[in-house]
């Protein structure tokens, strides 16, 4: 056997480590070990690649790895848990851009001109480019550097369609004849498509789009694998691609929407909201009165949403939960699959605040017992508790599974102001007889309740 075959054998080892890694990530008991295994797999793949006889310039490689490792490590260690969605988006975008550059570099070397390699270069650049700018726009939206509302402009769909067609035509030209101008045009237009594709997607749909872009970055890697005929790239990229698609589907189901609707719906654009007008009025309640109700409650459910992340209220919430439990109440946290801005966002925040794992409940576990709940506290969640999803067929979110807090005996809704939620909908919950609004910053409100319990 020559050296190349040993390298391939090592790639098999590394692929096995990735497969076990992903599998173990799906189980709470083994997840951390799984992540470590896949990191080892990555290390193996990187190290054995150095043994290719074409690879001779170690200095530059090590310099690049060192720079990247330091930057990545510092960011990862410094980030607050509330900043997690945007950091994941940013990392994802870098992976996409790396694939673009690999495809481009192979074009510059011009070793191969056969159509298959050309197609692979085209796909690596197209998918990687869309992943990069798409993730970057998602990052800007998540980090609040850009409005989370969908950005719509006239003929948006037509522009995107033209862009997409142009990319197809350029792809054909490039694969057939391979001119450099076509490649550069493909790079530019792919980057543009990523921006324009994510602009019309609103903040509440971010869990879907992040999962999707994650999948795309894997596919870009797999395409790069076809460019350089490298099996470990293909296996690892494809695993990420498909597991990302599964996550995307899970998120879509949790919102009862199709993926096409998420991509092109412009959901939540100002003025786009329909649905029945809600009758009645919202009734406020003071922190003191809310405290008396909570003191008597035997069964309390918290329903956190993006508002809790914005207010950074998770630690205060945890403290209140502990006090309620000490007071004899059963305390649970009901977490909707798409609450927040990233799949599983609320779980991460509450885990950071040290909320006991057993208290975190999925929607389907809470709903059947919601009738026995004395007080449901909705913290900065909106659409995921809107009963219109169940009883108003004209509502845009009709059919979306929700946490049925309106069936609890009492609901306290913590909210900054009287405005509507991300989808632009009035929340019918807030007008229900059993619902009381506590206006103000969620963290201050919860801290106020904690102070009442202690005083």
């Amino acid at each position, binding site marked *: 056997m020559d050296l190349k075959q040993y390298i391939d054998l090592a790639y098999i080892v590394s692929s096995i480590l990735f497969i076990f890694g992903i599998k173990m990530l799906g189980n709470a008991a083994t997840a951390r070990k799984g992540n470590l295994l896949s990191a080892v797999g990555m290390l193996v793949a990187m190290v054995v690649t150095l043994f290719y006889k074409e690879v001779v310039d170690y200095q530059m490689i090590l310099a690049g790895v060192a720079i990247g490792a330091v930057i990545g490590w510092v960011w*990862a260690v410094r980030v607050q848990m509330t900043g997690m969605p945007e950091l994941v988006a940013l990392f994802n975008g870098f992976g996409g851009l790396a*694939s673009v550059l690999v495809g481009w570099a192979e074009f510059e070397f011009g070793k191969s001109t056969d159509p298959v390699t050309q197609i692979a270069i085209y796909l690596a650049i197209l998918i990687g480019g869309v992943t990069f700018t798409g993730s970057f726009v998602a990052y800007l939206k998540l980090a609040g550097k850009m409005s989370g509302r969908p950005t719509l402009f006239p003929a948006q769909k037509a522009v995107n369609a033209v862009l997409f067609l142009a990319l197809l035509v350029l792809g054909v030209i490039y694969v057939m004849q391979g001119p450099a101008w076509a490649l550069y045009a493909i790079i530019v237009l792919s980057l543009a498509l990523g921006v324009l594709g994510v602009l019309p997607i609103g903040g509440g749909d971010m869990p879907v789009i992040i999962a999707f872009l994650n999948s795309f970055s894997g596919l*870009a890697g797999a395409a790069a694998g076809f460019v350089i005929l490298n099996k470990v790239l293909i296996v690892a990229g494809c695993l990420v691609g498909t*597991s990302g698609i599964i996550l995307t589907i899970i998120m879509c189901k949790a919102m009862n929407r199709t993926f096409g609707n998420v991509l092109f719906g412009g959901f939540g654009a100002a003025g786009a909201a329909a649905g029945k007008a809600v009758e009645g009025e919202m009734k406020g309640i003071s922190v003191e009165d809310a405290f008396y109700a909570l003191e008597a409650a035997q069964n309390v459910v918290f329903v956190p949403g993006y508002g809790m992340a914005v207010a950074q209220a998770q630690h205060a919430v945890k403290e209140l939960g502990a006090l309620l439990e000490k007071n004899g109440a059963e305390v649970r946290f009901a977490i909707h699959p798409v609450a927040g801005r990233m799949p599983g966002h609320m779980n991460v925040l509450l885990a950071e605040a040290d909320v006991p*794992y057993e208290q975190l409940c999925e929607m389907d576990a809470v709903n059947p017992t919601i009738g026995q709940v004395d007080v449901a506290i909705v913290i900065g969640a909106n659409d995921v508790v809107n009963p219109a999803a169940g009883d108003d067929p004209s509502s845009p979110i009709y059919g979306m599974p929700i946490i049925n807090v309106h069936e609890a005996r009492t609901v306290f809704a913590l909210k900054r102001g009287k405005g509507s939620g991300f989808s632009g909908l009035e929340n019918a919950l807030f007008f229900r007889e059993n619902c009381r609004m506590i206006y103000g910053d969620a963290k201050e409100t919860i801290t106020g309740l904690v102070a009442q319990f202690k005083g």
Partner: protein
Amino acid sequence: MDTLILLLFVFVLAAFLGFELIQKVPSQLHTPLMSGSNAISGITVVGAIIACGVAEGEFGKWLGFASIILATINVVGGYVVTDRMLGMFKKKGR
């Protein structure tokens, strides 16, 4: 052409494997799963190393160099951040 068929074969099998691997993931683990698999997508770094490691000092080499930096950020950042998250989950397991 033979190589291509083989690679396509690998790709298709990996796709089915990917679908099977994570059918039932508890929603608590969605974020770590995503950021952990995001780190794996940094596997492009292998392609970047090959592109950057070539002897000739041409433009493509520099593209490879930039690509190594970006992909390594993705890899290292992704794994570290996932480990941090899972570390928080673990505390509750006691």
